[in-house]
């Protein structure tokens, strides 16, 4: 087990908004060479749905046929996997949104996995949350996610690569709202020794906190560029951000 206070090793992450101009909001998120893109469309009147006082969040995930190197030509990503990703996104993100503010309407959250070298699901959650914030949807907080892999020798590695994921004993995924510290999704898979579980959770939570800072910085940067050229309100934007 890593000694208490030993830093968690994570891959470099990068977040940016505004990649997909058709969307109301969009984001790109990278962790190592894993890269995902999200766009948000809406709100739309959902004629097919029955009356609902709460808005609906419809998630859709597509994985590129070339997202993974190994024999992808003969074994392309399956629809079942994409649906599973979409369901996980919905689970992790809907508690953070104020869907009660959008009665009778629906939001479309569309994600695309460009390249998957491990930790695709936490990347999708981070990217989607940033895209939703970029779209200006009312929310309690952004959701930051991080996964850690536990190994035989007691090592705990943050944001594991595909290779690390395959050789790890088990994985823990945390999705957390940084402001309130509330956990919106927690998943453990594989075999994790009971005495190592708490440490793995603590490591994942620490990873979430670091990711949340990156997401926040990306959102502030996008807000600045968006408001910089409108009627010379750059100074006002600066003041609001600083204050």
């Amino acid at each position, binding site marked *: 087990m890593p000694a208490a206070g030993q830093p968690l090793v994570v891959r470099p992450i990068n977040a940016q908004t505004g*990649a*997909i*101009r*058709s*969307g109301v909001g969009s984001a*790109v998120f*990278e962790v190592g*060479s894993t*890269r995902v*893109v*999200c*766009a948000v*469309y809406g709100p739309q009147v959902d004629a097919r749905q029955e009356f609902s006082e709460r808005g609906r969040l419809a998630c*859709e995930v*597509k994985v*590129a*046929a*070339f*997202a*993974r*190197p190994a*024999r*992808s*030509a*003969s074994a392309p990503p399956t629809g079942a996997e994409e649906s599973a990703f979409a369901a996980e996104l919905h689970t992790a993100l809907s508690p953070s949104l104020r869907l009660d503010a959008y009665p009778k309407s629906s939001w*479309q959250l*569309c*994600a*695309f996995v*460009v*390249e*998957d*070298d491990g930790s695709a699901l936490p990347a999708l959650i981070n990217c989607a949350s940033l895209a939703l914030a970029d779209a200006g949807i009312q929310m309690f907080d952004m959701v930051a996610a991080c996964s850690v892999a536990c190994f035989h020798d007691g090592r705990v590695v943050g944001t594991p690569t595909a290779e690390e994921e395959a050789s790890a004993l088990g994985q823990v995924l945390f999705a957390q709202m940084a402001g309130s510290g509330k956990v919106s999704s927690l998943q453990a898979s594989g075999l994790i020794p009971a005495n190592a579980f708490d440490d793995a959770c603590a490591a994942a939570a620490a990873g979430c906190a670091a990711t949340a800072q990156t997401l926040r910085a990306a959102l502030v940067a996008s807000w600045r560029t968006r408001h910089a050229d409108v009627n010379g309100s750059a100074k006002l934007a600066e003041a609001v951000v600083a204050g």
Partner: protein
Amino acid sequence: MARHVIPATTTPLVIPPEAMARLSPAEYHARFLEAEIRPDGRRLDQPRAATLALGAVRSAAGSASVRIGGTFVLAGVTCEAVALAADAAESEGELIFRLEAPAISGLRARVPGVPSACDGADAVLQATLSRSRVLAPGALRIGARGAAWRLVVDVYCLDHDGNLADAALLAAVAALAHTHLPPARLDANARTVLVGAHAGPAPEAAGPSGPAGSAGGALAFASRPVPLSFARVLGRTLADPCRDEEALADGKAGALVTVVVDAELRVAGVHKPGGAPLPDAELRACVDAARARAPALHALLDDALALAAGATAAGAHL
């Protein structure tokens, strides 16, 4: 209860341009086209700026991303060595193109059964790339016989702002140009194909039936076709239409005219799937415009290839 009376006014109703564009797009565009200009400030025959980046996806054998105006397309190549039965005829290999516009592009089929812009662009891609010799003969062969490469070029539209055909075709050609095949070799009994490090150095000694392997590397091209598409909008021919202009196109949605020319500016394909009839003179003008556009696109491709050869430019677009 007092009735509301709308007072008679002498000032005419003024509709702001943004509202007019949404309320009556046809009239909005017609006003511009009368003045020989388009709402985004372009001339009628002026295409939008295009950018190209290679090597954005490291997991693919070759990849390219293309942005034309607001349209963004990502193409990746996956390769697979296919061994054939010993008595099979000589194989040229397989080259497959697939175009998809997932929900993230904002392009959804409004009416089921009516072809979308993606279907139209896919038809252009298949017609100009699958059925014409883009690669040199034998480019996909491994050894003289017995094995060949199967290449799949997956093209995804991630952002749709019109003229998907041009972006998809350019991205597919660029991704193929960026593709580096791993070395491959048939083993002694010609039953197994060894790929990558296992294949070892390419065998120098050629057997009685020719060399047993290929050293890999870049693909040999026969031609590099580049396109320019046009839409007939309100009786005018517009080069490189944006999404709003495509929506107003005469005839079926997605029925554009695409002219493809090669590096020597020869016409490599003209695609005109129904839609509004096109006068002969207009078609000639389209071919001339495509010829005028081609050198810029070839230069874009050559510059990107030189850049990718110098340094692996990773994720320049995304």
